[in-house]
């Protein structure tokens, strides 16, 4: 890490901070989208398992 910072010259802190910001923001975004996708998938599966929306006798709408 020290060698990398040295090779990046006097502005290494700015360069590494910029890449760290990219990593933090994009990792956070990716995780939140994946988590939301999983949560909706689970919720939908639970509802379908309970038979919600399934057409019932007597013509109850789906």
């Amino acid at each position: 890490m020290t060698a990398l910072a040295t090779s990046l010259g006097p502005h290494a802190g700015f360069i590494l901070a910029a890449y760290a910001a990219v990593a933090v923001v994009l990792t956070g975004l990716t995780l939140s989208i994946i988590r939301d996708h999983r949560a909706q998938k689970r919720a939908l599966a639970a509802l379908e398992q309970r038979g919600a929306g399934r057409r019932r006798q007597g013509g109850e709408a789906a």
Partner: protein
Amino acid sequence: MASLIDLANPTRFMRLSSALLPWLAGVSALLLVVGFYLAWFVAPPDYQQGETIRIMFVHVPAAWLAMMFYAMMAVSALGTLVWRHPLADVAQKAAAPIGACFALVCLVTGALWGKPMWGTYWVWDARLTSVLILFLVYLGIIALWRVLDDPSRAGRAVAILTLIGFVNVPIIKFSVDWWNTLHQPASVFRMGGSTIDGSMLWPLLILALGFTLFALTLHMLAMRAEIMRRRVRTLTILEAERLDRLSAQGAPA
């Protein structure tokens, strides 16, 4: 237009996206690995800016994507308002947080590049200010989605706000030509060709493509989540209505 709407119905989208997602994710990961390798180990330091040029490889794609996602949202807004396309407001809602994150990345990396090169993190010049406005418009759109419960009402309100905010996109693009700004003018896509040397241009273009595919992967995943959220909402309402009816009839739920 009717066939386009038929082609892009939510059920078909779920099936197609399920098959496409692993490929999109894989290709974007590959491009990002190759792009970062070239950007860090092959591209030389700039003769004026030295090693800080490495910030360009994340700053520029982030700026492009912040604008591209807003343009996509504007097209979706037209789809919502004019054609009432079933996926238009889903696409728009899913795009907003992604565009906002790239606008944020653009602002933060720009500030961290500006300090060593310009001597300041921030100036209120046309380019920087218009990108800040873009970020704030993204936040406004996300907030509006959260305020309104009914997705179709929220979709129309957000579509109008999105189209109004679109005025800012050409201002961002041409601000460096129209006004005297601290930010440099366009150097990649310009009349007369790029002013960047190939050793830096290629890593930049590969990373831009990699980030674009990565963002599209996230967009597709977020759209799938939004479609499922709407199904969950509809099924929950139907289930509640059924239970209400059953309890009114005195039957056990």
